[in-house]
């Protein structure tokens, strides 16, 4: 089930909230069981077959947790648990990729299995690995099976993160019960953040997405301007897509009185790649730091080893995002940039002009996203090649389709530009500039709502935005991060 769907907004969410509010009066266990049940429905709605995989994963990890506790946090038990999780991930996410690699290297002909990737498997697998590692380190609080199942399956964060750590979630689950009451302030803020996320996804990300999809579907025939715009538009599409999902997750959590960790903090405002990774997918970065970088020695084993460790972290990040060499290249590009910036800071003591470093960082990120979006490395290189040899011409009508319908037509009508050729270019330009201005200059929804005064006028404005979003849901698209 998608957050941006009629069934979620008009059926699932009201039922989940009402049941939770009613059951909270009965004690601590039933509301949690209710949330787990609703989360299983949420997950099973995508594909009932996925549900068994997730349930088995939760059960087996909880057994490992119990074993680790009873055996005195022995390392072999941790290794067993982590290996089991990684094997699950490798099978479902990387089997075909590894088979293709083996066939290419060994000149064999092992058949591919075309395994359907269970949604969110990377997220709930990493979250459980993090939990086992925290348990091994003695940092995880004791928890019941119900609390653990809720920790893994809680629907707002199940499909595309954040990768929550037990230290921030379990204490909140412990408070669920008759005494926790209804936090009106949190609910209202959650509602505002959820609608802001919905708007980010359906009004902004999906508009850019139409041009991006067209460009990548016709890479061999796009011109240079379309290729450049496709690179920029995908950077904006992914930003507002992931921002939308993260906001919706946080908003939903708040409606249930739960604070979900911040995962996205205006990352394109970053002045260098190090700052970017403190703002983009924050919880994945934290996970990799705690569970890969530090165990590898972090920065404690000398300069050279530090940079090797950093490159390994970005390699794993690339592989985690997808099974393909394009994702590996994307990860390594970020790794190289990260190490370069760190070296410059460490040895050259170069202080760049802020605007310059901001621009360089943003352009680098945009180019790296090409490898992230493309089906494979060949397609990514083909698109980049079109920037140079695509020939200069204005973007075509098909590329601008997303800017030439619906509400945009009325804007052109008001401006008396419906019958002129420049209308759609003007709309594209205004929409893109406005989006970039908000991206670089405006505070994000979390910050805005921290000090928001809930005036009547804002209620009307929020209502209008919500209605606009609901009317836009019929062209539903999935979140880009669902498949990672």
């Amino acid at each position: 089930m998608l957050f941006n769907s009629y069934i979620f907004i008009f059926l699932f969410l009201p039922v989940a909230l009402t049941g939770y509010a009613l059951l909270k009066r009965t004690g601590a266990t039933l509301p949690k069981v209710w949330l787990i049940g609703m989360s299983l429905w949420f997950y099973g709605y995508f594909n009932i077959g996925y549900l068994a995989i997730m349930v088995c994963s939760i059960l087996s990890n909880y057994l490992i947790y119990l074993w680790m506790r009873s055996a005195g946090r022995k390392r072999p038990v941790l290794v067993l648990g982590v290996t089991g999780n990684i094997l699950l991930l490798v099978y479902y996410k990387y089997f075909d990729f590894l088979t293709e690699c083996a066939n290419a290297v060994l000149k064999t002909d092992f058949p591919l299995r075309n395994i359907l990737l269970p949604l969110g498997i990377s997220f709930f697998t990493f979250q459980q690995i993090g939990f086992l590692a925290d348990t091994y380190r003695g940092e995880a609080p004791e928890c019941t099976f119900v609390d653990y199942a809720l920790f893994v399956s809680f629907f707002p964060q199940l499909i595309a993160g954040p990768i929550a750590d037990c230290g921030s979630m379990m204490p909140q689950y412990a408070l669920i019960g008759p005494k926790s009451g209804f936090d009106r302030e949190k609910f209202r803020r959650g509602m505002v953040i959820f609608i802001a996320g919905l708007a980010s996804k359906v009004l902004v990300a999906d508009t850019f997405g139409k041009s991006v999809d067209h460009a990548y579907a016709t890479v061999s025939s796009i011109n240079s301007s379309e290729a450049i715009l496709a690179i920029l538009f995908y950077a904006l599409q992914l930003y507002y897509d992931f921002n939308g999902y993260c906001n919706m997750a946080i908003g939903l959590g708040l409606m249930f009185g739960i604070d979900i960790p911040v995962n996205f903090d205006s990352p394109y405002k970053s002045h260098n790649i190090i700052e970017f990774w403190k703002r983009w997918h924050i919880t994945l970065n934290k996970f990799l730091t705690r569970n890969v970088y530090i165990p590898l020695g972090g920065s404690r084993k000398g300069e050279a080893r530090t940079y090797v460790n950093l490159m390994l972290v970005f390699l794993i990040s690339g592989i985690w995002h997808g099974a393909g060499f394009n994702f590996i290249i994307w990860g390594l590009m970020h790794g190289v940039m990260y190490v370069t910036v760190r070296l410059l800071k460490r040895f050259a003591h170069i202080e760049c002009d802020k605007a310059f470093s901001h621009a360089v960082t943003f352009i680098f990120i945009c180019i790296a996203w090409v490898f992230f979006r493309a089906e494979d490395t060949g397609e990514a290189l083909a698109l980049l090649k079109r920037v140079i040899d695509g020939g200069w011409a204005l973007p075509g009508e098909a590329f601008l389709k997303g800017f030439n319908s619906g509400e945009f037509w009325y804007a052109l009508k008001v401006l008396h530009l419906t019958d002129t050729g420049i209308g759609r270019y003007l709309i594209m330009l205004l929409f893109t500039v406005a989006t970039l201005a908000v991206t670089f200059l405006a505070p994000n929804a979390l910050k805005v709502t921290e000090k928001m005064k809930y005036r009547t006028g804002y209620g009307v404005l929020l209502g209008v935005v919500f209605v606009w979003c609901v009317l836009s849901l019929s062209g539903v698209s999935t979140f880009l991060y669902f498949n990672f």
Partner: protein
Amino acid sequence: MRQDRDKGFVIAFIITVVAGLLTAGALTVIVDPFFHYHAPLKDFPYVVDDQVDMNPGLAAHMDYDSVLLGSSMTVAFDTDRFGEKMGLKTQKLSYNGAYPKDQEIILSKIYKAKGSSLKRVFLGIDELNYSCDTEQTKFPVTDYLYDDDPFNDVKYIWNKTVLLDYVLRPVADRSDKSDWNMIYKPWWQPMHYNLANVRLYYTPAEEAEDETPTDDYIAGIEANLNVNIIPYIEAHPETMYTVFYPPYSILYWYDAKRQGQIDKIIAKYDYMTRRLLEYDNVEVYFFQNDEDIICDFDNYADHTHYSPQVCDYMVDCMASGRRRVTTESLDEELETLRRLAYDYDYDSIDL
């Protein structure tokens, strides 16, 4: 004081949402631009340009006694001419690039609405599309407009595209209003039907030998006829099925020649025609070998799509019986086509 202001925020939000959604939903249901609930309003300037989304509604709620089915080869027909020549009230229900499954789906909607009162089906068959998988549709069908589930109608009722582009926009700009007899008409104007325009879109096919055995094509056609077309012909002897093969230009046959497909295509026509003519309620019209049409590029906007005048001529033929083919005359028609396709002086075309 703060509490009152907060209450105002919540109430304002709820009122705005309820009012907004009710208004949007009501406008869509009243105008019903995809005819999902009722026939078109008398004076509303409907824009009828979305075949996949509008055909089921048109089939269900329009007033007609015959239908015109087929691919983009049928969109230039003026349905009023069927009335003038044959006294029929014909509804156009074309699907661009239609596969047999598309025809099956819309036939089921047509018979659900009209039952045995349907007098005639004019069915344009493109042999190229009849060898595909029997369950394949050209485009995904829109679930909420094709199924009977009332709950997923929410995707229609609260739909920004429907509301802005098909309910409000026609009112704001009546210039796109569709003529009911010419719905789905191509954008080409009379000045576009000439060799210069054909040349714009046409690139000769690569020379290659088609390796697919003719029997494989025939098997595909047989399966599609058996699954998607013939069950309706058999179940409705009261309906006359007028099948016609759209006349592509001679350049279509140039491509077929370059790819070694002429005999295979002719074999397909042979099989299809004989199979369909086994039924008393089927008649077949053969225009493929009509030199006056297919060798004159003033009839074409590209190498396959012909002009409204050609459509008028075909309607006239279907009314008079001219160019109707029988099992007895089929061999001769196909032989004429074979000779034309092989022997035409393609070098004389100024490509």
